[in-house]
């Protein structure tokens, strides 16, 4: 596949992630911050997010597994996850966290467990999508092309 085709494919792929609500504007903000002095910025930030999210999802899972659930603690973890997902533009994960916090407030274990499942699914979904996106970018760069910038409005 030649570079132009790969670039178009990347743009279409990225657009689809926005259309499906998987990513929001914040992701575009991150792309805007990437430049020659900071060429791997987006990948670095997203990698931090992946590490953070997986740790938090584990902590939340353990906390919900206790005999007596410490809801303030669960809420604190969810709050952190909401923050980091919002900062990379992982919209569905962020929204899942917002819903989760309501269940924490109600001290609702079943609701929380269902929400956690949902968030995990959304997280792995966005993780797969972003990894695919980065692979597309790498292929373009390897073929000697440059990664096209997304327009802010489309």
């Amino acid at each position: 596949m030649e570079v132009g085709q790969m670039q178009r494919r990347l743009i279409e792929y990225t657009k689809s992630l926005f259309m499906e609500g998987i990513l929001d504007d914040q992701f575009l903000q991150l792309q805007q911050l990437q430049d020659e002095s900071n060429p791997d910025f987006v990948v670095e930030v997203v990698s931090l997010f992946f590490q953070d999210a997986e740790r938090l999802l584990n902590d939340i899972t353990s906390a919900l597994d206790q005999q007596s659930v410490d809801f303030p603690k669960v809420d604190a973890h969810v709050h952190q996850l909401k923050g980091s997902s919002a900062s990379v533009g992982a919209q569905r994960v962020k929204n899942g966290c917002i819903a989760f916090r309501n269940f924490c407030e109600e001290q609702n274990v079943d609701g929380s467990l269902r929400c956690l499942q949902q968030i995990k699914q959304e997280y792995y979904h966005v993780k797969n999508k972003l990894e695919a996106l980065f692979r597309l970018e790498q292929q373009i760069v390897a073929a000697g092309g440059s990664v096209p910038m997304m327009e802010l409005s489309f």
Partner: protein
Amino acid sequence: MFGKGASSSKNMEIIGSEKKFSVLIVDDDPIIRKIHSALLSKFTKEIHEVKNGKEAVDLCRSGTSFDIIFIDKEMPIMNGLEATKELRAMGVYSTIVGVTSCDLSSERNDFIAAGQNQCYEKPLTIEKIKSLLSELNKNN
């Protein structure tokens, strides 16, 4: 940008090239620190980061001063409001900008009462920084 007769600053390259200013980023979240640092580096090269309110207070107490301090509200050891009050009590006159992941409208009064000049919801964006800088520009 801070000087007189700055032309339309829609072009990113113009911003920050006319006057240097220093910023301090105070946040316990390394992702936010990295993003805000990259964001602010479009406007200035003098950027410092610390992880909580106490580190910010200690740094200022040691004599380092900053033009703008971006301070997260929710942090361990010393949170944003406490740190702001301490900084003001110490006589720090920097512009202090609160940053919060909570709903801003309910927090705004707390921020202003603590001595902050402005507050934003996380994460900061290019537009928010531009609007902040143009506000500071007007007041200069």
